[in-house]
């Protein structure tokens, strides 16, 4: 059995350590309520009618399988507010997640939803060492992205102090870390590696900082990265998981045993399905996570296809005492979404930007590198005779407008490289659009 690396603390033992049969009963009750709430939405109204589903016909959790699947495309089709089930007066917050093309998808929160969200974050934060006497630093961007605010309110719930440093400016981050004697940091794992490198370059030692815990999310990372970060900084790093379409961070997170992320099962029903057949896979087998939100009011989402590949475990009890199902770290995606510096980017967004610029070939290749510890994104675009100029400033202008369009749509600056026609590889007629050299593959 895994050992606990830090003192075991549980924020809401009454739910996290609930008897399983009792929890299932609660889940069923909440699932019915969720179906009720979802029934006011055109999308679900239509689907439920087709499938003959009403809340009172759901008699066991197995009936979940009869419910319709919701995809990112469905959310886009009902842009902007087609998945909002409450009156505008009940909304207190709206976040957005990047879409596969220019338009994002919105997710709304009522007052109760925000409370639920921060409670879920508080649970994994406490499991990963957060106590009210600590000072924390949030190095996630505050904004449309759910990471910054989600963790912020979660930490407030626990009662620890927050330095809302937001993202970027590593020198200043380190100054704050050192001078404010920060105990816990919230950031992406790659940013933590970057901080570690700068700290080393500044000649600071592990003991010069009070820093003890880090909570990572927002991007894929590996166990090797965890070892590297913990060794370099002398801290304990914890993984958490969530996505904007469901709620943001808080769907699951690691405990002191670190044998997978405990899913907040009283609020989220998580299935692991074969992405081809959408049939459930066995315990410990890889599949795509499909999530139903049980308690959300503003956006009661049913069976959302996350596109995230993971594994679920429920048989082995966890030494921390929680009775919830655990999930492994996300291994990859069933679609082509990339996470670059913590931002979700789809190749189709880059394509859309290139179409806007016009005059360049639809042949492009995105290359991702991690020189140092930060992501570097390159996009190679084949030149076309129509846009080619014998004047250098014209080509520079072209490059600048490509950069502008791509960053307007994705929020990320790519290194724009113009390449010769037919120089990008085409395999079997189908162009390859992404080459990831960051070494994030997990087996």
């Amino acid at each position: 059995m895994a050992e606990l690396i830090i003192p075991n603390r549980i924020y809401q033992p009454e739910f996290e350590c609930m008897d399983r049969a009792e929890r299932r009963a609660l889940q069923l009750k909440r699932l019915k309520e969720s179906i009720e709430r979802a029934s006011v939405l055109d999308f679900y109204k239509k689907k439920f009618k087709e499938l003959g589903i009403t809340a009172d016909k759901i008699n066991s959790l197995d009936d979940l399988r009869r419910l319709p699947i919701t995809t990112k495309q469905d959310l886009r089709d009902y842009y902007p507010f087609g998945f909002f089930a409450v009156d505008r007066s009940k909304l207190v917050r709206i976040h957005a997640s990047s879409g596969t093309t220019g338009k994002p998808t919105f997710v709304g929160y009522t007052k109760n939803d925000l409370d639920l969200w921060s409670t879920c974050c508080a649970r994994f934060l406490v499991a990963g060492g957060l106590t009210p006497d600590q000072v924390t630093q949030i190095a996630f961007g505050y904004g449309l992205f759910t990471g910054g605010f989600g963790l912020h309110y979660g930490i407030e719930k626990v009662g620890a102090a927050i330095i809302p440093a937001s993202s970027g400016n590593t020198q200043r981050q380190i100054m704050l870390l050192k001078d404010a004697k920060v105990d816990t940091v919230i950031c992406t794992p790659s940013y933590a590696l970057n901080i570690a490198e700068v700290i080393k370059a500044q000649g600071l030692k592990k003991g010069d900082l009070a820093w003890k815990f880090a909570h990572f999310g927002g991007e894929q990372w590996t166990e090797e990265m965890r070892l590297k970060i913990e060794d370099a900084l002398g801290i304990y790093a914890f993984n958490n998981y969530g996505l904007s379409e469901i709620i943001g961070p808080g769907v699951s997170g690691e405990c002191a045993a670190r044998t997978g992320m405990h899913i907040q099962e009283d609020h989220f029903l998580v299935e692991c399905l074969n992405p081809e057949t959408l049939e459930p896979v066995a315990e410990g087998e890889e599949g795509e996570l499909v999530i139903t939100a049980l308690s959300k009011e503003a956006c009661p989402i049913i069976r959302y296809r996350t596109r995230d590949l993971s594994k679920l475990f429920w048989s082995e009890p966890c030494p921390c005492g929680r009775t919830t199902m655990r999930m492994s770290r996300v291994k990859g995606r069933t679609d082509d979404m990339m996470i670059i510096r913590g931002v979700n980017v789809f190749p189709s967004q880059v394509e859309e930007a290139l179409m806007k610029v016009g005059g360049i070939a639809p042949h492009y290749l995105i290359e991702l590198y991690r020189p140092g510890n930060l992501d570097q994104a390159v996009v190679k675009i084949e030149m076309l005779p129509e846009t080619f100029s014998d004047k250098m400033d014209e080509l520079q202008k072209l490059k600048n407008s490509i950069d502008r369009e791509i960053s307007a749509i994705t929020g990320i600056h790519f290194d724009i490289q113009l390449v010769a026609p037919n120089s990008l590889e085409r395999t079997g007629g189908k162009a390859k659009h992404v080459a990831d050299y960051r070494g994030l593959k997990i087996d």
Partner: protein
Amino acid sequence: MLIKQLSLFVENKPGSLYPICKVLKDNNISIRTLSLADTEQFGILRLLVKEWEKARDVLSEAGFIVKVTDVIALPVADRPGGLAELLEVVDKHNISVEYMYAFTFGHNQTAVMVFRFENPEETLKYFHAENIDAIEAFDLFK
């Protein structure tokens, strides 16, 4: 008279010029002069060849991006102020030079300055008015 210049897109990486020269060699086309403008990542190769139409066709067929541009080739007098005389005309009419490059040719090693202007036809007239005559393609590729 205007001279036809070929401009080619090249990537700034080892071995990117050779295939171009190879195509020209295989088609028995000799290069009068060339000039390369480059950035860290890509460049523009500018070529003057006698059989520009043939060169354009064979290079395009080989997959290169080729653009034909009118440039003006002016003789530069071999004395102090030779180039200044040319630029004086440019300055007088407030014309901007998009780019320029120099080379020498012929038995006498005549110095030539190649200019790219936005309106080459019009600019040519200004030089003519100052009794500066552009070098004809016939002479340049003799």
